[in-house]
C-alpha cells in the first residue's frame, strides 16, 4: 500500500530538472536512499536506512547475512517480492528526483544496473549476443513493416561493434563472437559488466559479492576495472564480505546491522577492525559468561576429528577444514553465509561429495555413506527442515520413527518372517516425544505439513533422538521459528548435553544464539577453520574472524 501512496505522491515532490553540477538543493548525490524502511508481514527488515552516493564514487556496503542488504537491493531494483508484500517506505532518489522503481524494467530505465552473483549468461550464445540480450539492435525489413517490430532482423554487425566497444572499455581484447560456454569464470563476470556498461544510460552499478567466485589474480584485475568504471562517472555500490577489499577499493562505507545503518564512514578513517566490530555488534546482553573457554589440551578426549575435510556442497563449500570436537561439549559453528559452515555437518553425514578424513573415537568413519555414519551413533537435524528434514505429507509418528526403523530396526515385529512395522509402539513412542518436547499438535497422526516451524523442528529433533545418538549435529535450529519456540529448542539442546552427556554440534548464522549455548565456537571462513573462540570473546575478534581477517592479523 505504502509503495503506491508514495508513487502517487511523486508529482508533487521536488521535480527539478536533473542536476548537472549538483546545484539543486545542494545535493550533488547521484543516488540517495532516504529513510527507507521495509517490513515483511510485521517483521521489520529495514529501518530508516539512509545512503548517499555521488557520481564516480565507490560505496561499500557491508553487513552480516540477514542485515538487510538483499532487501535493499530488491527495493533498488523494483523487484516483485517488494511490491507484492506491500511495498516500502521512504524514497529512492536519483539525480534529485524521487524515482522509487516499481518494476525491474523501470529501474533499468532509471540507469540502475546490477552484476548478479549468479551469472545471467546464456552459455550457447556468443559474448556479443549475451551483452545485447533482449536489447538487440535491429533493422527493418519487408516482414517487419507488415508484421511489426518483432520481425525486425538482428543487426549482428552493429551488435558486434557495440559489444567490442564495451569490452574495450573494460580492457578485454577477447573476440566478441566466442560462445560464453567454456569461458573462464572471470571472463564471464567481465561479460556481465560489459552488458551493464553497454546500457547507454547506466548511472549506478551494483556489485553483489563480485569477487566471491574469482581467483586472486582475477580479483585484482577486477578491482582495477571497477575503479576505472567509477572514473567514467558511474556510481558504484559494492557489496562484499571481504573487508580488505572494501578498504582497498571504496571511498565510503555503510555498515548495516539488523536492518539499520549502524555507521557510515569514510574509508580512509576506517580499518578492518572497526568495520568488523560494527558488523557483528552484540545483540543479546545476557550471553552466558559463566562458561570459560577450557584450555587447549593435547591429551583431550576427542569424539570427532575432522582432518583436511573437503565438502562439495554448492554455495557452502568446505575446503580443507581441520577441527576437533571434544566429548561432551557443545560446539558452535559460525561464520557468514556461503563460507561453508553449513557444509561441515552435511559433509560429516555424507550428504554431499566429501574428501578428507573423519575420525570417530579415533577410528576413521567411511565418507559419503550416510548409513554408516548414522550406524555409528551420529544423528543430524538438517538446516533444510521442509526440504530434507521431514516427510511433509506423512504423520508425526512416522516422521519420528522412520530413521530408527531404518537404522536400528526399532518398532518392528516379526510375523511369519516378515518384518512388519509395529504401529502400537510407533504411536506410543510418538506420544512420549510429543509430551517430552512439547510438540503442539492435534495428535500423532497429524501431517507434519500442518505444523508450525517450531513444532516441525521439534519433530526433526525427536527423530534424531529416537536414534539414541551420542553425537547430535544440529544445523540452523532456530531458523524461521518464533521466539518462544527458539528458546525451547535451545534449552532442549543444552539439556541433552547436560543430562544425557550428548555431544552437540550446533551450526547457526545467529552468532548471539551460538554464544548463549556453546562451550566453544568455531568460525569458518572460505571453507576453512578461521579460529575457535570462547563465547565471551570480544566482538572485534568475532568480527575479524568472520571477515577472515583474524589469521592475517596474527601473521602480520
Amino acid at each position, binding site marked *: 500500500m505504502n509503495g503506491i501512496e508514495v508513487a502517487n505522491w511523486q508529482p508533487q515532490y521536488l521535480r527539478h530538472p536533473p542536476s548537472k553540477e549538483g546545484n539543486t538543493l545542494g545535493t550533488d548525490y547521484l543516488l540517495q536512499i532516504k529513510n527507507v524502511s521495509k517490513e515483511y508481514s510485521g517483521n521489520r527488515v529495514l529501518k530508516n536506512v539512509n545512503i548517499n552516493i555521488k557520481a564516480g564514487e565507490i560505496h561499500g556496503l557491508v553487513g552480516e547475512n540477514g542485515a538487510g542488504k538483499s532487501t535493499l537491493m530488491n527495493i533498488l531494483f523494483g523487484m516483485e517480492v517488494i511490491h507484492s508484500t506491500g511495498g516500502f517506505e521512504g524514497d529512492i532518489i536519483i539525480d534529485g528526483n524521487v524515482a522509487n522503481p516499481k518494476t525491474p524494467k523501470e529501474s533499468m530505465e532509471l540507469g540502475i544496473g546490477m552484476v548478479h552473483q549468479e551469472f545471467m549468461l546464456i552459455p550457447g550464445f556468443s559474448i556479443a549476443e549475451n551483452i545485447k540480450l*533482449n536489447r538487440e539492435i535491429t533493422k527493418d525489413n519487408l516482414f517487419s513493416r507488415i508484421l511489426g517490430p518483432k520481425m525486425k532482423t538482428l543487426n549482428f554487425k552493429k551488435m558486434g561493434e557495440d559489444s567490442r566497444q564495451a569490452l574495450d572499455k573494460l580492457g578485454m581484447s577477447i573476440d566478441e563472437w566466442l560462445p560464453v560456454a567454456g569461458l573462464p569464470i572471470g571472463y564471464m563476470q567481465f561479460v556481465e559488466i560489459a552488458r551493464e556498461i553497454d546500457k547507454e544510460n547506466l548511472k549506478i552499478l551494483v556489485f553483489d559479492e563480485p569477487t566471491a567466485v574469482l581467483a586472486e589474480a582475477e580479483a585484482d584485475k577486477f578491482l582495477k576495472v571497477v575503479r576505472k568504471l567509477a572514473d567514467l562517472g558511474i556510481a558504484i555500490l559494492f557489496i562484499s564480505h571481504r573487508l580488505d577489499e572494501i578498504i582497498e577499493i571504496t571511498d565510503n562505507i555503510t555498515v548495516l546491522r539488523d536492518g539499520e545503518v549502524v555507521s557510515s564512514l569514510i574509508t580512509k578513517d576506517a580499518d578492518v577492525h572497526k568495520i568488523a566490530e560494527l558488523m557483528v555488534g552484540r545483540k543479546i546482553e545476557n550471553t552466558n559468561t559463566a562458561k570459560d573457554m577450557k584450555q587447549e589440551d593435547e591429551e583431550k578426549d576427542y569424539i570427532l576429528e575432522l582432518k583436511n575435510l573437503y565438502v562439495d556442497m554448492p554455495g557452502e563449500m568446505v575446503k580443507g577444514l581441520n577441527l576437533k570436537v571434544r566429548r561432551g561439549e557443545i560446539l558452535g559453528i559460525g561464520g557468514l553465509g556461503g563460507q561453508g559452515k553449513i557444509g561441515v555437518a552435511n559433509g560429516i553425514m555424507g550428504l554431499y561429495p566429501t574428501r578428507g578424513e573423519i575420525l570417530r573415537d579415533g577410528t576413521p568413519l567411511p565418507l559419503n555413506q550416510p548409513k554408516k555414519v548414522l550406524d555409528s551413533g551420529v544423528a543430524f537435524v538438517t538446516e533444510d527442515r521442509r526440504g530434507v528434514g521431514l516427510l511433509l505429507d506423512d504423520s508425526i509418528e512416522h516422521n519420528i520413527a522412520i530413521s530408527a526403523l531404518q537404522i536400528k530396526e526399532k518398532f518392528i515385529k516379526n510375523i511369519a518372517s516378515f518384518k512388519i512395522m509395529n504401529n502400537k509402539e510407533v504411536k506410543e513412542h510418538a506420544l512420549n516425544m510429543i509430551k517430552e518436547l512439547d510438540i503442539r499438535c492435534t495428535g500423532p497422526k497429524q501431517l507434519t505439513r500442518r505444523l508450525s516451524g517450531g513444532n516441525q523442528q521439534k519433530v526433526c529433533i525427536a527423530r534424531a533422538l529416537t536414534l539414541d545418538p551420542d553425537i547430535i549435529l544440529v544445523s540452523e535450529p532456530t531458523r524461521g521459528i518464533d521466539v518462544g519456540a527458539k528458546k525451547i529448542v535451545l534449552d532442549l539442546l543444552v539439556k541433552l548435553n547436560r543430562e544425557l552427556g550428548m555431544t552437540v554440534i550446533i551450526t547457526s548464522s545467529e552468532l548471539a544464539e551460538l554464544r548463549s549455548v556453546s562451550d566453544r565456537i568455531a568460525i569458518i571462513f572460505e571453507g576453512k577453520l578461521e579460529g575457535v573462540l570462547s563465547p565471551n570473546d570480544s566482538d572485534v575478534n568475532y568480527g575479524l574472524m568472520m571477515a577472515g581477517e583474524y589469521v592475517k592479523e596474527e601473521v602480520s
Partner: protein
Amino acid sequence: MDNHLQIEEIKVKKQTNVERIMGFIVPIVFIVLCAVGYYLSELPFIFVLNEVIIRLGRNSFLVISLIIPVIAGMGLNFGIVLGAMAGQMALIFITNYSLEGAGGLLIAILVSTPVAIVFGYLVGRVLNKAKGKEMITSMILGFFSNGLYQLIFLLFAGTIIPFKKEGLLLSTGMGLRNSVDLAGVRYAMDDIIKIRPYPGLTVPVFTLVVIVLLCLTLTFFLKTKLGQEMRTVGQNMHIAQVAGINVDRTRIIAIIISTVLAAWGQIIFLQNIGTLNTYGSHEQVGLFAVASLLIGGASVTKATYRQALMGTFMFHMLFIISPMAGQNLMNDSQIGEFFRVFVAYGVIGLALLLHAWQRRGKK
C-alpha cells in the same frame, strides 16, 4: 586502457557429447541401414528415388513444423496432431462446398490458418502449465483432442453441423464417413509445376520449391528479434525472464507457428495422397514427423531444417525398402514393416533417453 587482459587459450566446447552422438552417429547409422536395406531390397534405383522424392514433398513440411518449438526449448511437439486436425477440417470444409483445384486448396489453407492459430494458442496455454513435461503432455493432448475431434465428426456432423454434399455423411445421416475422397484437390499443388525428367521419375517441383521457401523463411525468422527471443527462452527460461522477455507469450507464439505450419503441412500431405481417412490420417502424424526429425540427427534441444530434410529422406527410404528387404532376407515382408515401426518408436525413445541422461549429467 593499459591493462589489456591476456587472451588465454580458450577451449570452446562447441557441442556436448549427446548432441554429437545424435548429430553424427544417428544419421550415419541410418545411412548404413538405408544402404544395406536398399541392397537387400533389390528394388530398381529409379523406383526408390521416385518414391522418396514423392514422400519428401509430401512429408517435409510437417517435419519442419517441429523445429521452432525445439528451438524455443519445448522439445518435440507431438501437439502438431492438432495442426493436422485443423488442416483436415479445412479439407472437409472445401470438399463439402465442392471447391476444387489450386483455388480450392488455397481456400483450405486460408480456412485452416485461423483454426490452427486457436488450436496452437490452446496447446501453448496447456504446455505453459506443464513446463518440463511438455513432450508427454503434448502427446496426451494429441490423444485427448483426437477424442474431441471424433466426437465432433461422429456425433455432431449431420446433426448439429449441416453438411450439404452427398456421400460425405454416413447412411444414418449422422457422422462423417470413414474416408473422404479428395479427388477435387488431388495433386492440386504438386501439379502446378511437375516435371518428368526420366521415365518413371516424377518431380513435384512446385511443392519442393515451397519447401525450400519454408526453409529460407525459417532461417530468416531465426535471425529476427522474435527468433532470438525464442532461442533465448529455449536456452534458459529464467535468464530470459530476468532479461525482460515474456517467456510464456514467446512459448505460445512458438507453438502457434508450429501448429499453423502443421495444418498447412497436413493439407500438402493429403493433396498428394488424395483421400482423407477422417478418423486416422492425423493420428500418426506426430510420431512419424518426430521420428523423421530425430533420424536426421536432431535432438530434443537442437534441430535444423537440414536435419529435418535429411531425416525425412532417410525415414521414408527405410519405409520403402524395408518390406522388400525383409521379404528377401527373412522371407517375410511383415518383418520389415514391424522393423520400421520399431525404428520410429525406438529412435524417439533413444533421443529422449539421451536427452534426459544429459540433463541429469549437467546438474
